């Protein structure tokens, strides 16, 4: 098995809200991603999944914890070393309307990355590289002189992907890259991401709330709830035999486009809403909505334990559902 490209150890990110209140968005999370692998990160809104991605890129500075990229500590790097690492780590954002500067042509949006890292020597070379990137993501070279408003959502997301690829990264954080797109366009972008991964040996952290898409694209999947990692497994195993009651509920909540399956499916419907991350429940964060909760759950946070080879879950009663 190849060495992990990414290692995240006990990552924490807290936001100070004033008046002595802090929001623990990411609470002590550890995972690793091997080279060429896709790790899916799922959870509902407010669970901290996007904060994980943004903290890895240092769009937010971490409160504590470690992020090793090819063995080098990202959070202890600065200056030229950090700049070099930024080339290796890129991001694709959720909203293709908000993530492109409306006043820059596509050429300049993509070219900015090339300029910052001084990757091209002449204007002609810059232009050629940008045109090559546009064709790589399925756009036409003559699109380069247009502005973002001239493109549809799916096309804009392709531009966002071209921009991330411009600096030849090794690792890309994809933060809900398809959730703003129409269903028929989603498959186009998912297939493009898969092709690029095969062709360029990319490693992805794929953040999404759509479990069907995450299952499709990921090798392994991590499930987050209220800032904590509650389950981590191979995607086939996670979907076939989930151990954590939250994962079970999440999976059974997804509607399947087949009326016969829908008619007989038994749903685990969890009651209530997500508790506040400012004042999370004691012990296990899921215990307030969990059908299996016992006294021990409010007393102790269950650790993330390997229950089967490669299948981790943080639950006192893992596998009981």
């Amino acid at each position, binding site marked *: 098995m190849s060495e992990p490209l990414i290692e995240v150890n006990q990552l924490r990110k807290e936001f100070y809200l004033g008046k002595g209140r802090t929001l623990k968005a990411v609470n002590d999370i550890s995972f690793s991603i091997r080279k060429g692998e896709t790790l899916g990160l799922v959870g*509902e*809104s407010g669970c901290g999944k996007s904060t994980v991605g943004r903290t890895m890129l240092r769009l937010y500075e971490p409160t504590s914890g470690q992020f090793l990229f090819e063995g080098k500590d990202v959070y202890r790097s600065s200056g030229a070393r950090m700049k070099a690492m930024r080339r290796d780590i890129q991001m694709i954002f959720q909203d293709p309307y908000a993530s492109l500067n409306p006043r820059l042509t596509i050429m300049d949006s993509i070219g900015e990355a090339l300029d910052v890292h001084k990757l091209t020597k002449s204007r002609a070379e810059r232009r050629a590289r940008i045109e090559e990137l546009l064709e790589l993501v399925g756009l036409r070279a003559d699109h380069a002189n247009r502005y973002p408003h001239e493109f*549809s959502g*799916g*096309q804009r997301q392709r531009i966002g992907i071209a921009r991330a690829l411009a600096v030849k990264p090794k690792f890309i954080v994809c933060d809900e890259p398809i959730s703003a797109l*129409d*269903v*028929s*366009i*989603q*498959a*186009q972008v*998912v*297939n493009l991401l898969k092709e690029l991964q095969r062709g360029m040996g990319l490693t992805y952290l794929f953040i999404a*709330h759509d*479990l*069907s*898409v995450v*299952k*499709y694209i990921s090798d392994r999947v991590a499930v987050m709830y209220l800032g904590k990692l509650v389950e981590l497994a191979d*995607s*086939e195993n996670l*979907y076939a035999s989930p151990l954590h009651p939250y994962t079970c*509920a*999440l*999976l*059974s*909540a*997804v*509607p*399947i*486009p*087949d*009326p*016969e*399956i*829908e008619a007989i499916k038994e*749903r685990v*419907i*969890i*009651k209530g*809403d*997500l508790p506040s991350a400012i004042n999370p429940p004691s012990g296990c964060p899921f215990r307030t909505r969990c059908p299996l909760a016992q006294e021990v759950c409010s007393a102790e946070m269950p650790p993330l334990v390997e229950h089967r080879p490669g299948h981790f879950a943080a639950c006192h009663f893992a596998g009981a559902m």
Partner: protein
Amino acid sequence: MNKPIAREPVLEVKNLKVSFHVREGELQAVRGVDFHVDPGEVVGIVGESGCGKSVTAQTLMRLIPSPPSRIKSGSIRFLGEEILLKSEKEMRKLRGSKMGMIFQDPMTSLNPTLTVGSQIIENLTRHLNMNAAQAKKRAIEMLKLVGIPSAETRINQYPHEFSGGMRQRVMIAIALACDPALLIADEPTTALDVTIQAQILEVMKELRSRLKTSIILITHNLGIVAGICDRVIVMYGGQVVETGTVKELFTNPKHPYTEGLLKSVPRLDSRKEEPLIPIIGTPPDLVHPPAGCAFAPRCPYTMRICQRLDPGLLDCGGTQAARCWLNHEMAQEANA
């Protein structure tokens, strides 16, 4: 007002055409839509952004301001009466009483400066002539019905004190307070998380069997349609491209767009190796709608006739019909 007689549809839409005047010209958002909703039936309208599904729904309630919109032609009969001939005053009596609506975003569709209770009570006092005490009692009943705990105290709270899922429950309570004949739900769960979505769908299913309200459910999620609807209408480029019962449409789609939609979404219960087949290209420009089939430029089975002539909705047996030349009786011969 006429009560719906059995078998007589609650709603009947015929040849509805709605356009918007935009800088580039006339945008034909809805191009001749026909459908009906029977009593107690749940009809799903499926399609992507810009296919005309929301414009259709809002036109049913006459909620789209004119200008910029214009209802070019058609008829909407609701409980036997023509909606398009009604005055604004008459429409106001209908909305919220005989027709309820739930919108996608529960935060922007509730008034943030009024308590949740007063927003339900307003409906009841206006349409059902209830006095304040009766209306409050009924409002609490409604909140309990949609599963809001401690309704007696929650009724005095404001929308910002409710979570997204709870707000959507409030919206459902408001929409159903006057026992409408038809509920129009426009992407009611799109803004919600999956576990909350499951809760809301459960509420809707339960109310459906208890209150026998007819429902039009607009969504882009085929899974939701499979779970809750009786019949489906698939829209593309401002037209109905396929219609049929849920079973017919999911087991044997007759329009390549429906087939494409089903194949391009990964399913949670499918195996990973099955490739995702995307629909190539983008939806048509409705300022200059194509002469032939709107889906032809993206269709894997396109033929010469598709570019020139629109087939109209062709009968495919059962209750199924599709706007595709492949279902024409001569298609087999033509292909051979």
